[in-house]
Structures are given as C-alpha cells and as structure tokens.
C-alpha cells in the first residue's frame, strides 16, 4: 500500500489550512507528522481519512482517490482521532461490534474480528465497560481497535499519545511497531518528538500549511548535521567565567546561538569536526577551565525547533 498526498490544499473561507503539500509513505512504515499547533496536521489527516475534502489536490491510497472513490478509500484507511467521540450508553464490545457491522463484516467473521482486535489492543478485560467510564489511555486503545476492526491497510493517528501516562505511551508505541510489522502504512502526529524519533521511519515537518522538511529520519537528521549542538561545562567553582565564555564564543567563527543552559554553555556548531577541535583548542589556550566539551547529535526536537517558527494561520 502506497499513500501519496499530492498537491493538497484546503481552504476554510479565507484561511489556507493546507497549502499545496505533497509527500508519500509505504506499508510497513511509520511516518511522523510534526508541526506546531494550527500547522495543518489534523486537516491533512482528516483529508487522508476522507472526513474532510480537499479544496484542491488529492490523496491516493494505492491509486484509489479519496475524492473520487470515497467508499473504496474508506475501506482502506482507519482513523484514530485525538479523542474518542463521546458515545453514551454503549459498551466497548458493542462499540467495536457496531463498527465491524458498519464495515460489512458478517456473522462468525465479525465475531472473530472483534475478538481478535479486543485481544490485540488488550481491552478484553474491559469489554463490558461503558465507553464513558474509560480512562484516556483505555479510550485510545478502543479508538485504535475501532480503526483496526475492518483491517485497513492505512492507519492515521492524530495525537494518539496526547494525555497518556508514560506506561500507556510505551504500550501504544509497542502496538504501533507491531502494526508496522503487519505491513500497515502508519501516519502519526505527535508533539512528543523523542518518541517519534524512536519509532518513525520517516517524517514530515509542516508549518502554516506548508512542508518545511520531509524524508526518512536519517535524511532529515543528515540535512541538519552541520548544525550540531555543543555543550561546554566548566570546572566546578568556575561558573563566573560563563559570561566571558559566552562573549568569547559569540565572536568565534562557526558558532551560532550560544546560550547558557543550566550551568552549561550550549551553542550550535555550523562547521565540521575540525572546526570543533579548533574552538576547543582556542578556549583552552584562553585559560577557560573546561571539564566537558561534548557534541550532541541533533534529534527531531532540535530539527523541529530549528525549522519552525511557531506560526499558525
């Protein structure tokens, strides 16, 4: 299954929520969708899931257009919203059974599918509980179960980890890895970027409806490799040298964005490793008592902070 987002544009009145974006991902991949609030992530995800219609452009799910072949596209995609719609007076089992029926599963096949999903998402113990009585983490499991009950090839998850405790987050991450192993194409948006780095194969960074970076995690990290962050710690009792060190660094070539972070000096190195070596040598020569000089590899969070400006439409 190949998901191709092609020149997608969505306008709400005069606001352009999504502005001509294109990217693609395949089955077996977990694709991260990152951006500040109001960047257009949810709108894009809702278009892929056939909830919204694009103003222009299209999304192809193995060649099936979400605009033209709505019914076929709906069979191929499962959508997990950030919150499960409030359903009163219905149990977990009834809810999953209803969606299995809604997607045309009949008789024994439906019973088996619902039981399998209950087991997979580990909701067997709460199947007779009312939806409204569930915790956020459990609701998220049910929501995932609902999206999986008809075995779609594409899974779109909008902030599934929001509001979950660390344990529930780890469990969700494990479920997603399992699903990717089952050849599902997964698009996930999250603000917990460290987690995305761990599970995603690829990433799209979006702001003001436009794509800023896209590619595999390695590609994106490689692109920002010249901007490694370096942390310097002075020998204990020498922190009074920090302002002087900061001034010194600001005048040094290949150094950008030098700042003090919890008794350390951090800066972005725009040069290569030889440049780092020169900087260290010159600082020691200037009698700074350096006890630690370490380079930290840029992660998704750093890249996100670098490429986005925090703007919304």
């Amino acid at each position, binding site marked *: 299954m190949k998901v191709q987002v092609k*020149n997608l544009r969505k306008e709400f009145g005069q606001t352009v929520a999504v502005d001509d974006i*294109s990217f693609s991902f395949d089955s077996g991949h977990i694709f991260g969708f990152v951006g500040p609030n109001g960047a257009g992530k949810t709108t894009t995800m809702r278009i892929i899931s056939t909830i919204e219609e694009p103003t222009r452009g299209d999304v192809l799910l193995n060649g099936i257009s979400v605009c033209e072949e709505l019914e076929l596209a709906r069979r191929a995609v499962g959508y997990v919203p950030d919150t499960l719609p*409030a359903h009163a007076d219905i149990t977990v089992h009834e809810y999953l059974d209803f969606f299995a029926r809604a997607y045309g599963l009949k008789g024994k096949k439906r019973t088996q599918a619902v039981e399998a999903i209950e087991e997979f998402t580990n909701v067997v113990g709460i199947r007779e509980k009312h939806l409204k009585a569930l915790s956020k983490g459990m609701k998220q499991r049910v929501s995932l179960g609902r999206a999986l009950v008809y075995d779609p090839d594409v899974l779109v998850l909008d902030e599934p980890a929001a509001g979950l405790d660390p344990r529930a987050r780890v469990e969700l991450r494990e479920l997603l890895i399992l699903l990717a192993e089952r050849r599902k194409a997964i698009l996930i948006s999250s603000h917990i970027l460290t987690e995305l780095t761990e599970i995603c194969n690829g990433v799209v960074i979006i702001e003001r409806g436009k794509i800023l970076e896209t590619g595999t995690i390695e590609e994106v990290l490689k692109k920002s490799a010249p901007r490694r962050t370096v942390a310097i710690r002075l020998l204990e009792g020498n922190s009074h040298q920090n302002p002087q060190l900061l001034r010194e660094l600001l005048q040094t070539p290949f150094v950008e964005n030098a700042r003090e972070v919890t008794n350390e000096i951090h800066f972005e190195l725009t040069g290569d490793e030889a440049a780092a070596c020169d900087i260290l040598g010159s600082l020691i020569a200037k009698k700074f008592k350096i006890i630690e000089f370490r380079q930290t590899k840029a992660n998704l969070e750093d890249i996100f902070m670098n490429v986005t400006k925090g703007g919304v439409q």
Partner: protein
Amino acid sequence: MSAKLASLKSHFAHWREWELNPIVIKELRQGVRSWAVTGMLMLFLVVLFLTSLGYLISESFDLGANLQLGGQMFSAFVVILAGASVFFIPLYTGIRVAAERQENNLDLLYVSTLSPARIIRGKFLCSAYLVLLFFSACMPFMAFTNLLRGIDLPTVFFILAFLFLIVCATNMVAIFLACLPLSRPFKFLFVLYGIVQSAVIIAPLVAYALELMRSGVGAMMAGRDFWIGTLTVVGVGVAVTGLFFVLSVALVSPLSANRALPVRIYLTAFWLLGGWLSVWWVVQSSNAGRILFWTYPTLGAVVLALLVTVSSSDQLSLRVRRKIPAARLWRPLAFLFFNGAAGGLVWLAGIFVVTALMTLTIMSTFPGGPMSVDDRRTYLTLAMYAFAYALTALFLQRNFLPRRPSKLTGLIAILLAGGWALAPAIFLFFANRLSWKSVEGLQLGNVFNVLYSRDTSQLIWHEYFACGWLILVVALNVKWFLRQLKNFRPADNAVPPQGVGAEK
C-alpha cells in the same frame, strides 16, 4: 440495468445472511441502556396506571353503570400517549443525531462505509421501534378500555395507526433538523421550536382522535369518503416523511456527492403526483378551485427551494462531473437535476411556469374558475419577487463576496427581503409617522405589502415593478449562467483540478 438486477438477485439469494441495519442495533442498544428512555417509559407506565386507577376509583362511588367509561379512559390514554410520543421520542431522536453531528465532534460512523441513506434509515427505524415500544406499553391499558365499553376495536386500532404515522413523521422532521449544519445555539433554538411545535401538533391531533371516537370509526368504514380521506392523509404523511428523509440523506452525504439529484427527483415526482391528483380531484368534483391545493403549496415549495438552490456551490466535484452524461441529449436534463445553482434555478423556474400555466388552463376550462385578477396578480407578483430577490442575492454574492461561501446567498436574499420590508417602517417610526395606514401604502419591492395591502389597485404597480426587476437581475446574471452552462461537462473533457501533478 442487468448488473443491478444481478445484484438484487444475489441479495435475495443470500437471504440467510441478511442482517439488521447496524445503526438500528446500535441505537436500540443505546436506547435500552439510556436513562432517558427507561425513565420516560417507567414514568409513562406510572401515569397510565394512576390514570386508570383514578377513573376506576372515582367510578366505584357512582351507583349507576357508566357505559361510556371505556371511551372516557381511552381518551385520557390517547392524550397521554400522544403527549409522550410526540414530545419525547422526536426530541430524544433529534438530540442523539445532533450530538453525533456536532461540527467539532464528528461521529466516526459518518466516515464508515455505511451509505448516508442507510444511516438515516437506521435512525428513523430506531425511532419507529421506540414509538412501537411506547405503544405496546400502552396496549394492555387500551385493550382493557374495550372491556369497559364505550369504544369499539376498529376505532382503537385506527386512532393508534393514525397516531403512529404522525409520530413517525415528526421523528423524521426531528432527524432532518438535527442533520442541519448549525452550531449548538441554533440547534438549541430548534429544540425549543420543536417543543412548541409538538404542543401545536398535539392539540388538533387529540381533537381529531376524540372526534373519531365520537363518530366511531367502525360506522364510517363502509363509506367511500372515509377511505378517500384516510388514504389522502396517509399519502401526504408518507410523502412528507419521504421528503424529509431525502433531505436528511442529502445533508449527511459528502460534499462531493451529487446531493441535489435525489432531492430534485423526489420533489419533481412529488410535484407531478400532486398535480395529477389535483387535476383528478378537479375533474371528479367539477370545481376548478381544487387545483389551488396544488398551486399555492407549489409556490411555497419553490420559494423555499430557491433559497437553498442559490446557496449551492458553483463548483462541481470530480465525482459529480464524472457522472455528467457524455450524450448531448441527456446533458440538459442532468444540468437541471445535478448539483449547482444554475441548473436548480432553471428547474425551479420550469416547475413554477408549468404550475402557473396548468392552473390558468384548469381555471378557464372547468367550472368554479377563473381565478380573480387580484389573486392572479398576487400569485405572479409573489413568485416574481421571490425569483428577483434570489437572483439579486446571487449576483451580489458571486460578484462582490466571492471569497465568502456560497451558502450565504440564501441568507442574503432573506436579509434583502426582510431589510427592504422593515426599512420603510423604521423610517416612518423615527419620523413619528408610523401607522397602519402608512404601512399599507405602496412600498414597491416589499413582499409583505403585496399580501397585506387593502388597496388592490396597488397590485398592478407591484406586478410591473417585480417584472422589471426580475428582467434586470436575469440580465445581470446571464454571464454567470452561461459560464455555469459551459462548465457543465463530463470530467474527462474538462481541465483537471489545478495542483494535481508531480509529487515534490
């Protein structure tokens, strides 16, 4: 056609695998678990029990035999049943659908593979089952009244069937109102309106039921007129329910679907059937005036449809464009019935012109006519004003507010008509010259002035003004209309939507 037949054949061949509509199962499961339904049902039973007890205890003090006790108790039960079912079930159904349709909490069932028609049918069937639940709870009490005399069984069943039809129709209206894409405050206003409207429905409903009890349905069943009247009411009830069903389906259909097609086909069929029945009635009764039962409701429907039609988008989705017939012979017909304001306007103009011509012909051919000059003028003027306001709003929205959604056009038309009607009164009020006489003076362009003016000589000025205004706005919209006509062609011949192309 053969594919459809084959699919139908296969459907019936696999009857063992048939399953209930999933929506019905879900809704009924939710219904029986809900405190609202169980609480209301318990309250209903308690009220019925206490009412029976009250009647029987009060009657036990009376020494003489009351041969009308059954009828009296039944009347009380009808009032309770009508109250419970007309007030509660449509309200419950409407609130449930509205909650699922909340803009920021779109229920995921609307993005399942269930068709919009199946969703609405499920909601409607569930509400009908709830009505049956309440009716069956009432049934033992009503059967008991038959034993006490004063009412015959045909009357009991007829009244119940009549009530059932009314409640089902109100349920469908409630579903339609809940499907309207409105914000929460507006929906709340609709709930209030629904409660008031229920009270308005209940009074004549109960009065009619009591009248039926008084005359006795059993005695009337032998008469032809009784069946004509009954079938007419049932026919109108079913047709109205069907209309709201089609409208609700259109509302929950995706924007890219051909939402206008089923609605316009249904309305056209409804209009044709109504026309045919009215002509038949004219012929049977030799009274040309009967045609007006078709003429005036058609005008009302055209005015409402105008507001919706001008609010349609000019952009046809790819899905719709792919369905436009390639054959030039069928394309004009598709233009009238497919999505789009231009085709809709021609469709409505066609319906109005045919209705007007048919009415005038019938009026001049059959006894009981012709229509008076004033009535004819009022009718034509109102229609011309409606088209003129709608087309003016269309011109303003398309030319001066193109960035605003086209769904505002209907609202603009209402504001124009309302504003123009109110403006003179406001001016007169501030000039301290507002009086009934001043309001009744000639106010060209004021629709209400046509209806309420006592001086019928003013009608001719309204007629000329409306005609001139209509010609002007038609001329202003010609360019837009021709553009819509030109764009109405199958997707294959059309330029693909901008932006589709190479991936980044």
